[in-house]
């Protein structure tokens, strides 16, 4: 016997899960379909009891159902259906196989090319001063030392590069001629790059902006 396509909607109707349009359509249908109406009345009777008679689910059983169904491991496991877990497992195995096999098909080693902004290690280079607006032209610039045998390249910008120098110390003083070119109210920025003794770029600071406030 062929099942009416509306039969599958009985629960949604009884549990008030339908939007207005769908509900109207379903209601019009059961005015015209004696089979669906009979099945709905029968289901409504059972669902009504299930909704009202809490006792049908033994009091001691309810927390057990809740606890069992919300256990963390079950929730994690139940994130996918068994079929989906199987597919995910197969996909992971395929990915591992591809990653393992790929180097075998390469001709020699790939070339590792770095541009001026890439670093070999992920060291962070922290600027100490100046990092906020200041009232006078800074006498020196300071950053956090990374280690011995590190050379720092300091650049100061006023839109364009104003001054650039290198040092093995973690501070640098501004030459007088540069100081004299820095004017109040102008926005400046500075950045430090660290190089190993082999000349490899190992860290780049962020570019920090500051303004020399006009004297009151």
């Amino acid at each position: 016997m062929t099942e009416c396509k509306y039969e599958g909607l009985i629960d949604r109707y009884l549990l008030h899960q339908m939007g207005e349009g769908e509900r109207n359509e379903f209601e019009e249908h059961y005015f015209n379909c004696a089979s669906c109406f009979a099945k709905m009345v029968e289901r409504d009777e059972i669902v009504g009891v299930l909704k009202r008679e809490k006792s049908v689910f033994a009091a001691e059983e309810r927390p057990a159902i809740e606890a069992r169904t919300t256990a963390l491991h079950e929730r994690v496991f139940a994130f996918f259906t068994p079929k989906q877990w199987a597919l995910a497992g197969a996909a992971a195995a395929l990915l591992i196989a591809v990653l393992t096999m790929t180097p075998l098909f390469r001709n020699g080693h790939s070339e590792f090319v770095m541009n001026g902004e890439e670093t070999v290690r992920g060291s962070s280079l922290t600027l100490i001063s100046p990092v906020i607006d200041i009232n006078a032209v800074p006498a020196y610039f300071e950053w956090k030392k990374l280690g011995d045998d590190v050379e720092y390249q300091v650049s100061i910008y006023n839109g364009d590069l104003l001054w650039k120098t290198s040092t093995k110390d973690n501070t640098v003083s501004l030459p007088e001629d540069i100081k004299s070119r820095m004017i109040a109210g102008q926005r400046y920025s500075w950045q430090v790059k660290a190089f190993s003794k082999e000349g490899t770029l190992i860290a780049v600071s962020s570019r920090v902006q500051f303004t020399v406030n006009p004297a009151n």
Partner: protein
Amino acid sequence: MTDTQPEIDLDELVLKYRPVVSFRVRKALGGATPDWEDVADEIITQVIEKIKNGEFRGESSIGTFIYTITSRRIVDHIRQKTKVLRHAPEPSAFPDPHETVENRERAEQIANAVKGLKPKFREVLYLYYYKEMPREEVARRLGIPPRRVSERVNYALKLIKKDLKK
């Protein structure tokens, strides 16, 4: 052309559609609303009058004709009540099975049938109907595919119906 009106056996019509109209009205107004039966009666009377007056011309099915009258009357009733009560009556989710002794006995039968089910069926009914969780959520909670939830619900309902026929 009134002579082409479809012939309708009114007694048969009332017998067939009274339960349908009553069900729809009770769902809309709530079984606890005292006048739902009066509204259902009014609708049936209205349907008979309209058919006698030749207002049903067979342009739609008789079911749709009665559904339309029912829906309009329900809306009118809620509007009237809204004017009086300042708010629409709250439809209750399900009719109270304790309305009559017969209903109470039937409810007890159903409850006993549910209690007699295996825990795996009771828990799916609990989550799906009592907690009103979507099928997918029940599936996640129980760690089974959604299709299996439907199968368990349908099988549990089948077992309950079988138990009721004993």
